[in-house]
């Protein structure tokens, strides 16, 4: 996706934001420090796993409430058009979030106002523990736009993703919103508390997994070690950043 975009284009996603953050230029140290609640974390330890941001690269997080990032993404697109920036917003969400009402409300407004918004459904076929066929009457998420066009893409094929994003960017700038459905797979469980094996078989998981990981592991291990050495936030940080201006909290 990054290969098709510039840092002027915005990306916003859900709580599954670690890799998106890295793709937008975040460092591994910032990732692991944030996960461990340390000062060197991208949100200085205050946001946590679900709340990574990088505004200087137009990465707007990092959201814990399923579906909320889609209207926010359309808002970013609105602002880009308002400022005549000639850039687009990619709002990423999962197949679980695809059923959220606010998504349809924003598709409607974006289409009415020709906003340069690309709605990217990362379809890993499970919403936490619920398979897509149990949550969606029509799991053809790319077709849900009705009046907005949609493409289905094999997310496991990096070149296909790049092509789709390039195409979508051109389309959105001229014609308004488009939906990209990225067909993918989730190797692990939904979160730390989900073993991921109660609603599917292990064979299903190993059948999909590939071997890219070994090379990257060393780099990761270094970053983790550095992160663990990093200090926790100062106590005074508890009360900072509540507001951008004034009216701080007094101890």
């Amino acid at each position, binding site marked *: 996706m990054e290969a098709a975009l510039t840092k002027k284009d915005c990306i916003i996603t859900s709580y599954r934001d670690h890799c998106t953050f890295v793709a937008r230029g975040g460092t591994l140290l910032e990732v692991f420090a*944030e996960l461990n*609640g*340390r000062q060197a974390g991208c*949100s200085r*330890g*205050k*946001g*946590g*796993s*679900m*709340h990574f941001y990088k505004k200087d690269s137009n990465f707007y997080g990092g*959201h*814990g*409430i*399923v*579906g909320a990032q889609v209207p926010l993404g359309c808002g970013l697109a609105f602002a880009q058009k308002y400022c005549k920036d000639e850039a687009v917003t990619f709002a990423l969400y999962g197949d*679980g*979030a695809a*059923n*959220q*009402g606010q998504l349809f409300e924003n598709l409607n407004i974006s289409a009415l106002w020709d906003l340069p918004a690309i709605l990217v459904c990362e379809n890993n076929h499970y*919403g*936490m*523990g*619920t398979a897509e066929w*149990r*949550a*969606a009457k029509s799991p053809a998420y790319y077709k849900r736009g009705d009046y907005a066009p949609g493409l289905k893409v094999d997310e496991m094929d990096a070149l296909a993703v790049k092509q789709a994003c390039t195409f979508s960017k051109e389309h959105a700038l001229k014609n308004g919103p488009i939906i990209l459905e990225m067909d993918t797979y989730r190797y692990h469980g939904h979160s730390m508390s989900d073993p991921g094996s*109660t*609603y599917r078989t292990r064979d299903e998981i190993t059948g999909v997994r590939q071997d890219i990981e070994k090379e990257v592991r060393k780099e990761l291990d270094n970053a983790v070690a550095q992160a663990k050495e990093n200090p*926790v*936030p100062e*106590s005074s*940080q*508890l*009360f900072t950043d*509540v507001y951008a201006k004034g009216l701080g*909290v007094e101890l």
Partner: protein
Amino acid sequence: MLGIVRQKTLEQSLKKIRPAVSVLRSYSSAAKQMTVREALNSALDEEMSADSKVFLIGEEVGEYQGAYKITKGLLDKYGPERVLDTPITEAGFTGIAVGAAYYGLKPVVEFMTFNFSMQAIDHIINSAAKSNYMSAGQISVPIVFRGPNGAAAGVGAQHSQCYAAWYATCPGLKVLTPYNSEDARGLLKAAIRDPDPVVFLENELLYGESFPISNEVLDSSFCLPIGKAKIERKGKHVTIAAYSKMVGYSLKAAEILEKDGIDAEVINLRSIRPLDRSAINDSVRKTNRLVTVEEAFPQHGVGAEICACVVEESFVYLDAPVERIAGADVPMPYAANLERMAVPQVEDIVRAAKRACYRSVQ
């Protein structure tokens, strides 16, 4: 004559057996333990068994056995028509549940956490809470909204808010906050049987905690009254009023205070709306000092309401200003050290009680 002899020996042998039986029974009722999770699960099971109009609806309540396993086994027992897994669409499924309640069914809606109830809050307030009033009693809404509320551990700002004060503001809702397993069973059963909308605020960190439970509580007809607080610990020097997890912290604080000669009375509020104003005021009139404890944000909170009602009804009895302990007035930070500072700890309650008693604070 033989009959009389037989009767006498029977009586004698019964007399020998009976004391042993009652000793066993009292021993077993003291030793029986139940987790809050088991208490909630058994309450749901029994109420579903007793009334076919009761059904469960929410995310992962069925096949996944519940995100926190509160609804474990219920899909297998009652089938997919009474235990419904929904898509991730709070506004949608809450609306459906309230509509079903209008018709006369008794939904129990699970929010995976109450943070997500904000997506559905219009239906909770405008569609459920106000209907009985707006229809002059024609449309009552026998619905329960339940799930974990408040701070968990390391889940960040969007997953840690306490909504007790928000929901308790609204007339037409009842708001309950169980602490232990007895509360969980008794209050959930009462909530399901109640003809009005009830917001049932559990606590994720209490689900696994085990509490002793009596045979009376285990009975399927057991029910606690809505709107009544419980004096968990009698005392005479200071009243500590708390709900949910903070009751446990307050009890620990009371043990510490006892060593310093301060005898604290701990009130488990159990019900935030209606608030048991008379229990709180009776206690304050006895001890003359009050500490309120909550994990939630301080402004416009439960503690603020308690303070106001005590000032309104028992002002002359207060020997010291009311001490209000609450969570820090900031979104919940993620880092463990900051998170610990953002919620009340036992030491904070001890210090507040000492301040109320005009003792020096270490």
